[in-house]
């Protein structure tokens, strides 16, 4: 699956981190590091993490199938 975090919007609340610790991590006190294309097995955890974000900075793919442009 694919996600992107708007790190301008992210305030480092880190609510997401314990919900999907393999995907979202805190680097230092407030810088978020994340895996933009985590394994599909993480989907439920990532969706919960995205829902928990107080500033809604985590954008999750809204297509099930990304055939378009997937030429590479």
């Amino acid at each position, binding site marked *: *699956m*694919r*996600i*992107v975090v*708007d*790190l*301008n919007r*992210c*305030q*480092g609340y880190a609510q997401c981190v314990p919900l999907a610790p393999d995907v979202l991590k805190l*680097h*230092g*006190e*407030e*810088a978020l*590091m*994340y*895996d*933009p*294309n985590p394994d599909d097995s993480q989907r439920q955890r990532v969706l919960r993490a995205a829902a928990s974000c107080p500033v809604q900075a985590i*954008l*999750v*793919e*809204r*297509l099930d199938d*990304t055939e*378009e*442009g*997937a*030429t*590479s």
Partner: protein
Amino acid sequence: MNTSTMVTALVENFKANGRIVIVGASLAGLRAAEGLRNEGFSGPLTIIGDEPHEPYDRPPLSKQVLKGWVPADHTKLPRLRAVDAEWRLGVAATGLDRTSKQVRLANGDQVPFDRLLIATGTRARPWFNPAEAALDGVFTLRTCDDAARLQAALAAGPRRVLIIGAGFIGSEIASVCRELDLAVTVAERAEAPLIGALGGVIGTIAAEMQRDHGVDLRTGVSVEALEGDAGGHVRRARLSDGSTLDVDVVLASLGSIRNTEWLEGAGLASGFWGVACDAGCRAFDINGVVTDSIFVAGDIARAPHVLYEYQFLSLEHWDNAVFGAEVAAHNMVSLEPDRRPHLPLPAFWSGQFGVNIKGVGVGPFGDEIVFTQGSVKERRFAAVYGRRGRIVAAVTFNHGKWLEYYGAMIERSAPFPPPPAGFDQPADMQPVPAQFPDPRAPTALPDVVLTGHDPTERGAEFRSRRR
């Protein structure tokens, strides 16, 4: 049928049957395509990109990818909706004919359009000596292919990494090198890292951070030559202070070059600082006349900004690509009374040495700085930049939750220095000179630049290339 009904019918017809071409298949291009479909555009849409990859996110490349946590091809951007486009990936646009309304591609194809979005962005500025730049072990970082190669070179355990240029990218990579426990030298022509974007006061703090983390930071020097071994691999660098360094990896992080070459001869106001456009993303032609059918978004756009005396602002920021693309998409399928401005408050972030650096506004527009909250010693603080008694920018180190507060002050041109925040005040709240370098000095260019008032601005950017 009255005129307004006819105009409405015209817009509906365009939305159903118009042909839109987007040149540039990265963040701005993708978000513009999604925006067009959100706006109800259902006509044929073509997206042209010179890289073979579908749209991916670049900020992770200098951080989690180089660190080895995320593979370089794992930063593909999430799709926020179906765009139903024809993707022409791996083939660059090489020309624009505004009379016949066609984009020319490197393979000779011509792609016709009714409306065009220019989102070709920037590329990494290469090392100035082509023979030295071609040595194995010499890198730049812009694309995911660059990141894959550099990550492999760092993972191979080089004796020493040399980073030339201490802007954000160079500093972030130096940070990753230290996390990987690699010996790293940073050579910067100016007096401190990040000085072009944040000035010398903050640059001094950034320099301390680098040295505290074991970076061999050398300022006020330039790299004069790179030398390779018999196998063509870089092994040594010669610096302007007469010293030499034994290095196995060299990263040139010298800022970016805007991808405007393909527009030469098209008669647009394009050049060194990008393609000039109005605040509604419409491109200016070479005479400063706004075009009706050509729009610009992302790193390559250069537009006048109300907060900065209407100077044309060039912004290589992530959210400028996102928001600019949304506005461009809206305006491409809207007529005059419905068009919207793209007037972003510039905002950026950078993670390095365990510190989250964030900023809003245009620091180099200011000439003074004052620390307003927190502690420099603990590297947890906020500072604001002022010019003629007004706040024009703010920067935070591990203090990002307060940035919105300062952003709101910038948006209303609040007085500088601001009244104390009422919380966590530093001992010294005296404004001091921000120490920005002379803009003509050769250093890493900041990624937000005021480029003057004139859309063509002959002084710096309107320059036809040698043929």
